[in-house]
């Protein structure tokens, strides 16, 4: 646990004024989920991804998604070795512990679906051969907000492969001033010490999964799920997978708090980032984030 709080402090020194987002990102990693960061360019998405890889001691690859990217460019190819007389699999960038899929909504749907399949199955099948992805395996995808030219928005059915969707937003004036004075963060990145040993992250993930959730807490999550399906706020309600995701994220959040059991406040802390990208608001002029927050404000704890 000390190593995690060390990682937390390191990241906060790297990305100024965003403690909540950093904590959510860490929670996502501890819950073993993939993270979607939605924001305008230049607010530190890549830095956060890079920093996470650094402090968690993961090997890290980055793929810039473009419209002419092919699935093989990401997954890898089988090359014929004439001297050995056989095919050899040349793994692509997806075979890394942390893959940064930059601007995922610029790639063609074909590439998107190949990546999302890999994320779900945690393995890649090419030419009839199945190649397991490394453990742990995370994808941090970034995307620009909707409405920009030349994008293929991810379909809702695939969006829910991501455990969380967060956005960083512009820094506060003080943070930005500090940033301007401190200079380029890339330098700080390379100097970032790894906070976790190899295998330590997996152990922490297992520990997070064991955080206990009482039946009363399950009832609360259930009440949230049922309320989302009442068709007052949303086009479609939350799926059972979303319910499991809420619980997993809440467990990791509780562990970061140093507790061995989940409280309703943990659920409330992660609910919006876990659920907003899985929901479509029915109310005009209200984003799914606002609608999710409204749902939280109306479902009683008991």
């Amino acid at each position, binding site marked *: 646990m000390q190593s995690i709080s060390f990682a937390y402090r390191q990241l906060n020194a790297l990305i100024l004024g965003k403690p909540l987002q950093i904590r959510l990102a860490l929670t996502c990693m501890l819950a073993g989920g993939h993270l979607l960061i939605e924001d305008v360019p230049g607010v530190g998405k890549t830095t956060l991804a890079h920093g996470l890889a650094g402090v968690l001691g993961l090997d890290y690859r980055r793929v810039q998604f473009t419209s002419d990217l092919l699935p093989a460019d990401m997954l890898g190819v089988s090359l014929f070795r004439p001297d050995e007389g056989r095919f050899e699999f040349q793994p692509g960038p997806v075979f890394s512990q942390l893959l940064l899929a930059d601007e995922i909504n610029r790639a063609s749907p074909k590439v998107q679906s190949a990546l999302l399949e890999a994320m779900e199955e945690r393995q890649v099948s090419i030419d009839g051969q199945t190649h397991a992805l490394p453990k742990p395996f995370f994808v941090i995808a970034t995307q620009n907000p909707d409405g920009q030219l030349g994008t293929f928005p991810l379909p809702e059915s695939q969006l829910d492969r991501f455990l969380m969707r967060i956005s960083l937003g512009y820094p506060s004036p003080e943070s930005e001033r500090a940033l301007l004075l401190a200079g380029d963060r890339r330098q700080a990145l390379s100097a970032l010490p790894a906070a976790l040993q190899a295998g330590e992250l997996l152990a922490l993930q297992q520990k997070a999964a064991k955080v206990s959730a*009482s*039946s*009363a807490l399950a009832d609360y999550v259930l009440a949230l799920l049922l309320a989302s399906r009442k068709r007052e706020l949303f086009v479609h309600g939350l799926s059972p997978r979303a319910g499991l995701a809420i619980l997993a994220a809440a467990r990791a959040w509780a562990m970061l708090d140093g507790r*061995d*059991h*989940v409280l309703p*406040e943990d659920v409330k802390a992660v609910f919006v980032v876990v659920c907003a990208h899985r929901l479509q608001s029915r109310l005009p002029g209200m984003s799914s984030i606002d609608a999710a927050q409204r749902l939280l404000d109306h479902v*009683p*704890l*008991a």
Partner: protein
Amino acid sequence: MRSEPRLAHFAVLAALALTVLPLFLQLPPWVPLLFALQLGGRAWLAWQGRQLPHRVWLLLAMIVPVLLLWLSLRTLVGREGGVALLLLLTGFKAFETVTLRDWRVLLGLGFFLAATPLLFDQSLPSALWLLLSLFVLTWAMVLLAGGDSAASPRAAAQALLYAMPLMLLLFVAMPRLPGPLWSMPTTDQRATSGLSDSMAPGSIGQMIPSQEPAFTAQFRGRQPAREQLYWRVMVFDRFDGARWTAGSVPDSAAALASGAAGELSYSITATPFKGALPVLEHAVWAGEGVQQGTAQLVRRIDARNEARLRYDMRSVAQAAYPATLSAEQRAHYLQLPAANLRTRQQGEFFARQFRDETGRLAALSAWLQQQGLRYTLSPPLLQGDVVDDFLFSSRQGFCEHFASAFATLARAAGLPARIVVGFQGGEFNAGGQFWLVRSSDAHAWTEVWLQGRWQRVDPTALVAPSRIVSEVGELVPEAQAVLPVLGRRPPQWWHTVHAQWQRAGFVWQQWVVDYDARRQQSLFQRLGLGRVGVGSVMTILLLGGVLLVLPLLLWLLWRRPPVRSYPVRGWQLLVSRLQEAGVAAQASDTPAQLRDKATVLAAVQQQQLTRLLADWQQWRYAEGATDSDPRWRGWWWQVRRFRPPRLAAKKRTGR
């Protein structure tokens, strides 16, 4: 979704306004109007989310309306005064209604106010209005309890339906006092039956026929003919030349008549007019509650009681009275003032011409028929000697004119005569098998002492026979019931609906309003319970109530899981306690959020709250926590005892 509290508050105010609507007809109009303004003002404050006025202001504001009330009614007690005061005070109560408990009190007052229109009017429309009021009040109660707003009308109807058997049981079995439960002084003595205690026909230029029902009568067995229906109410025997009044000479023929031929047995439901009640001629038997008085009149035994009464009577068509007229009485019934000289001369002429009294009466009648008199409800006003003016000049009038003229003539001719005032005829309701007599059926006729008994002579029948056989409405176009909207003769279906409505009103009166101690006892006897005293009825009711409620209680207890629901109900209670204290708590808040919001409370309460919340969180969400933990019971009781005082308005964080 649970209903918003503000919605429930509006519902309570609206229900109160609806409930007292009938009082507009009974109280000085400004009282209900002020009440409506008060409710509207309170609703406006709730809508705007403004603070309520300070109590001192309320107290000061109360002075003026209460003073006005005193000035307009001269009393603050009794029926009008008491109800008006209650209304005003309830209106002011709305301005110090803040917490849920206050709103419940206000709603309770509403249930009480809903009964007040019954003090003025117990007819079927009032009862239907009460039913509507009860429904709306119950609806508001459901909303106030946080019920689902969409399902609330259904829930309210259900609750009322469940209460119905108990209501019926209490109505049937609750001990009734003989006589009215309370005798409330009223401020006005309205004559509702179209009668007055004197008669001065010359002073009436137009008689407006009122369709208001005066009384109902139901005959058992033999039904009477319409021309037989002379309902006596009062007798006028003193005449001052213009006005007939009731004299005070005792009538020796006070005893009941005897006779058997063509006996009619009937019950009348009527409101006494100064103690007097309608009765058919020649009553031979009077039932409970009434007594036969002088001049064949019937009075209520407790004459001061003006409440509606149902009584049984028997009358015969012809009867013999064991009576003679004393010299003193004879002189009284021949008394005439020194006026109307022409009429007196005419009478004296007949007295000289016809020695035989029967012949004299026949000649008088024949003479009257030859005078070309015309029946009208809008006669010209009479001047000077009114009887002379009528008989020899205007020759237009209605029953009072005819009766007055004929009685004067008869007295001048040496025949003792008097005027009987009451009703003639009525409308037979075939569906309900009863006669409805209206104010427009009011009538006056004369009686002449002939051959040892009083004989009825109806001069109106002599002059306009159709007035007696048919109804006024058919004779005089103005008197016809006119649909207020259409302004023309009502169609047939209107008559049908009208008759059905009257029938319903009759049944209501007969079975609900008239259900008194006497009828209750007879019902008990018919059910084989014998004579049941008040004590035993109360015991039966109490036992019955316990037996009725006990299974319900047991069912409720059995239905509720023993400990499981304590944390859930306790949480809701805790949140509402905080809300009542003025903390903007919500059931969707986490314990930590509640703690933060409750920092406005006093330190002691904050400590209590912190402990309650910590226990709740620990026992509910820690590893191995279950809702069936036995500690929950104790925790629940601690929550029940947790009552933070209401915050002062300045510190309040929300509504």
